């Protein structure tokens, strides 16, 4: 079974440009999460989709970031316009529908390393 995939693996752009990151979750996983790790800091939650709906976007840094998950399958995270502080590794994770009282493991993708010059 294929795991979570992310594209591209690495992106180098200039300040002010636009970048779109893509995440393909494990097939059948309703939950999709975006996280970000900036240099020297911990992995931080950005947002959570349940199918195509945004369940929690409290971690999104500002309105330069836009996440979509049309059709409830793959998701994109667009940064427009990119700033220097947006550099970091963007991880996507997916999990199955939550069972009552249970925990469904989040499976992580390999991440996209974004460098803004």
């Amino acid at each position, binding site marked *: 079974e294929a*795991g*979570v995939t992310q594209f591209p693996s690495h992106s180098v752009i200039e300040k002010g440009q636009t970048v779109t990151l893509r995440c393909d979750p494990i097939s059948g996983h309703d*939950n999709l*999460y975006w*996280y970000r790790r900036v240099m*020297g*800091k*911990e*992995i*931080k*939650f950005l947002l*959570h989709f*349940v199918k195509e709906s945004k*369940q*929690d976007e409290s971690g999104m840094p500002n309105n330069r970031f836009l996440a979509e998950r049309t059709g409830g399958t793959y998701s994109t995270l667009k940064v427009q316009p990119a700033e220097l502080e947006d550099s970091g590794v963007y*991880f996507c994770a997916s999990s199955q529908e*939550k069972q009552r009282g249970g*925990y469904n*493991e*989040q*499976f*992580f*993708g*390999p*991440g996209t390393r974004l460098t803004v010059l």
Partner: protein
Amino acid sequence: EDKVVQSPLSLVVHEGDTVTLNCSYEVTNFRSLLWYKQEKKAPTFLFMLTSSGIEKKSGRLSSILDKKELFSILNITATQTGDSAVYLCAGRRLKTSYDKVIFGPGTSLSVIP
């Protein structure tokens, strides 16, 4: 604000050594403590700890949670070079009907031959 702290941040040991990685947390509506191993790319799940005092084991790795002291440790015995990785601790918080995971900064472990 929810917080997960790990120590040490970096550790270099020789093969065969035993290491103990520490994690302390302050997480609202805490449900459980998660440990992940991150090698080159994606973090991979190791353990989930929900109850205090119950050790979880997987091969040479073991972990235990102390919910009174808000603390967890991850032990690795007889370390091997393949154990070199960043070990992430995360608190799982119940937020309405779904989980939110708060990560610590990670401990970077290097095992040298």
